[in-house]
């Protein structure tokens, strides 16, 4: 049995198609309306309200809290201050990525890690010999993500916290709709947005207040179908879509290093020890298997392919997350990697794909070919390597 989240009494009746998905053992709406398009448009032009309660959350407290998170995270947290949030991956001893998430400093000796997969054992293993306590607080908090260009104004109408001074990747305590909350200017949409965590008992009143205030701000509750579209546009990796956790596969071929995922920027050369550091150093010296890039497909070619069958152009209006072969040449002689997530971006009017290719093909502007299957025939569609994030509105960080 999947569990309801603390918002379920409210999200349940809204979920018109009963289109529930399994998110870490909880019921999560795929879409609220039968189709996701209104929800998507709300996120990009107004706001979307996502129930993100199923995220795993861990509190790390004690004298060695910083040492612990800094040991686990690839990014250097040594300069972290209270109220700061880092996006980081963590990896195993061989530098292979386990998961990504945010690490927030909530107090002098207190950090909170959010994760996509259960991570308690990994944190405990890495805290051996350190003076910290690690607590799974996943179910002590209900969370929503309010994301989109109107999110700041809307949230401001529900809180006394001065949101204009809360910068990108910062968090603060404050009351939202009367309930004590943690407000974090973070999200998984590549847009302006906030994540708000409250105790489970305050979940329903928070939701009600949001829905009531939302009308003025073009806000709609939004589900996972939309979330996957906007995170791809935002150039954000999805676990089980763009990578497999090194802890969840036993096959080396399926494990991916920090560099393979295009996250080498996270690694600071002079950071003190972190798990995977030495392997990543060796990899940096000897070269990586892959890099992760954005691709933009030439839809005019795709249109011609459909025309061969007397059909109009068809595009992926919901995202796909599967391994699609990528070649350096049209005849598909040289396999160089795979597309991992793809979609037609309504806001960009482009067919975009996240792909993992051999590093020598990762240069911006490079022309490569990605397979598309039309009427069960395989075709090579030309695509250019483009910058990620695909969509990066100026108000995201403003």
């Amino acid at each position, binding site marked *: 049995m999947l569990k309801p989240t603390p918002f379920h009494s409210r999200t349940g009746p809204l979920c018109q198609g009963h289109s529930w998905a399994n998110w870490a053992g909880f019921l999560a709406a795929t879409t609220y309306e039968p189709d996701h398009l209104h929800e998507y448009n709300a996120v990009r032009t107004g706001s979307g309200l996502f129930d993100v309660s199923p995220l795993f959350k861990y509190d790390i407290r004690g004298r*060695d809290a910083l040492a612990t998170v*800094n040991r686990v995270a690839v990014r250097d947290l040594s300069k972290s201050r209270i109220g700061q949030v880092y996006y980081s991956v963590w990896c195993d001893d061989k530098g292979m990525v386990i998961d990504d998430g945010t690490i927030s400093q909530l107090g002098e000796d207190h950090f909170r890690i959010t994760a996509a997969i259960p991570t308690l054992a990994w944190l405990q293993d890495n805290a*051996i*010999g*350190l003076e910290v306590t690690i607590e799974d607080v996943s179910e002590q908090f209900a969370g929503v993500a309010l994301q989109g260009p109107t999110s700041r104004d809307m949230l401001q109408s529900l809180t006394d916290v001065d949101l204009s001074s809360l910068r990108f990747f910062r968090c603060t305590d404050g009351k939202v709709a009367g309930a004590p909350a943690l407000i974090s200017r973070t999200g998984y949409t590549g847009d302006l947005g906030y994540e708000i965590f409250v105790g489970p008992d305050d979940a329903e009143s928070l939701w009600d207040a949001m829905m009531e205030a939302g009308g003025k701000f073009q806000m709609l509750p939004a589900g996972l179908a939309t979330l996957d579209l906007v995170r791809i546009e935002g150039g954000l990796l999805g676990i089980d879509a763009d990578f497999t956790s090194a802890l969840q596969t036993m096959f080396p071929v399926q494990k991916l290093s920090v560099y393979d995922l295009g996250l080498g920027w996270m690694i600071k050369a002079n950071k003190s*020890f972190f798990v995977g550091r030495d392997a990543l150093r060796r990899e940096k010296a000897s070269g990586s298997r892959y890099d992760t890039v954005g691709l933009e497909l030439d839809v005019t070619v795709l249109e011609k392919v459909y025309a061969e069958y007397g059909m109009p152009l068809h595009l992926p209006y919901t995202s796909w997350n599967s391994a699609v072969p990528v070649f350096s040449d049209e005849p598909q002689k040289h396999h160089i990697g795979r597309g991992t997530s793809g979609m037609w971006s309504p806001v960009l009017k482009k067919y975009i794909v996240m792909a993992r290719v051999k590093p020598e093909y990762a240069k911006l502007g490079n022309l490569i070919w990605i397979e598309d299957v039309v009427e069960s025939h395989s075709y090579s569609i030309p695509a250019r390597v483009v910058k990620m994030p695909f969509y990066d509105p100026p108000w995201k960080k403003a």
Partner: protein
Amino acid sequence: MAQYDVIIIGAGHNGLVTAAYLAQAGRRVLVLEKRDTVGGAAVSEEIFPGFKISSVADGCGYLSAKVRRELKLDARVETVPSDVVAFCPQPDGTQLTIWRDTQRTAEEIARFSKADAEEYPKFVELMSRIADVVGGLMEMTPPDLPEISLRDLLNGAALLGPVRRLGRKRIPDLLRILPMPSADLLNEFFEADAVRGAIGASSVLNITWGPQENGTAYTLLSSWAQSGTGLFRSAGVVKGGMGALTGALADAARGFGAEIRTGASVSEVIVADERATGVRLSSGEEHTAAAVVSNADPRTTFYELLEPHYFDTLFVRQVENIKYRGSAARIHLALSALPEFTALAGGDATAQLSGPIQIAPSLDYVQKAFDCTKYGEYSRYPYLDLLIPTLSDPSLAPAGQHILSITAKYAPYELDAGDWSAHKQSFADVVIDTLAEYAPNIRDVITDRHVLTPPDLESLYGLPEGNPNHGEMTLEQFFHMRPIPSCARYRTPIAGMYICGAGAHPGGGVTGIPGHNAAREILKDSK
């Protein structure tokens, strides 16, 4: 330039051996010992006024002949071997003595079983051959599995001799016997409880297992391989006590130019750019060196002297999983006269009593003594290993008086009933009651007693969980797995940082081999 070539943390016998070898090779060496005396677990202390007592280890027979020769220790210290390898009084008032001499022992055994007497020489022959192979591993630096190198294979050539002597037909014996319970092995050869107990007790003297547990045949062999008696255990003491031996080692090291300081507790190893560059003392004082060597146990080394967050996740988890689990208490008695064993009544007892004395009348007895540790209890009928060193060296006690030192098993590190301090005297009473069943006058001749429980061994001598060997010497913590696979070659993941104590291959006992092997590897790296 650093002040020293090498700083060694700890002046246990292994730290001293490493220091002596390195100084002999011309290195500038500083040894820092936190206690006020050198020797670690091999010390002599005046526990009772006028008595010089080997507080922890008291048998010196395991010391490597190579170390003794190369460091010229025989010129500095005198050892007294004993003809008796084990005097084993029995509950029915009889006794079995194991002598160095096989024939003489067979005659003793014949009093218990004619068949066993016939088997004994064959058993000794087989075990000696197999122990030869195990012994051949001791002075080797373990290979880096699975990435075994050509050099490792060449080192392995040293094993060819012992394997050839063992004979091809006996290789299956070797492979079969290693993981067996010692009880099963001994039951295959012998029928008399007294014989099985006399030999099998040594398989568990230094570990927290009973003889019915798998892998204890290996521990018996490992003891056999290093005993120096050609049998399952060592026998013999140092004149002046164990402190005289470590004192001689310290003198040898100083003689080669090493500097040794006591009362100097190291609080941390200084690491810069992922290299050990020196140490900081708890006084705040700092010293620099090109290399740092730890004689402390692995957990202390990696958790306290270094920081766990220097190391990979797997590494730390493996260190965390090192089994320590001490289960022996040490009890010292000052005696006004010798104990009178019923089994020796009417004759001259000094010959038998001058070697090791074992209260382990059967393997079931020892196993039952062990069983209770599984439930956090101490043995009601403990297995005892005794030594009266004053019979070999009367100068250790005031004239006419004696020392009786007992290793009493089993006394688990963690008592279910709570803190040991509330129970240690009652355990000592149990030990003395047990002894009284074999030597009824014992209570009358005790003038003083001193009890060290596993927590005492930990707090006073720095032996975590009271384990005698810086980690159990079981098969899964042997050779390339000691202390853990990624630092079984005396090196650690921190460049310039080494380990040389009993936690490293081949393990504990006053052998000097870990210290000897570590020095060899350090010299290789600094050529």
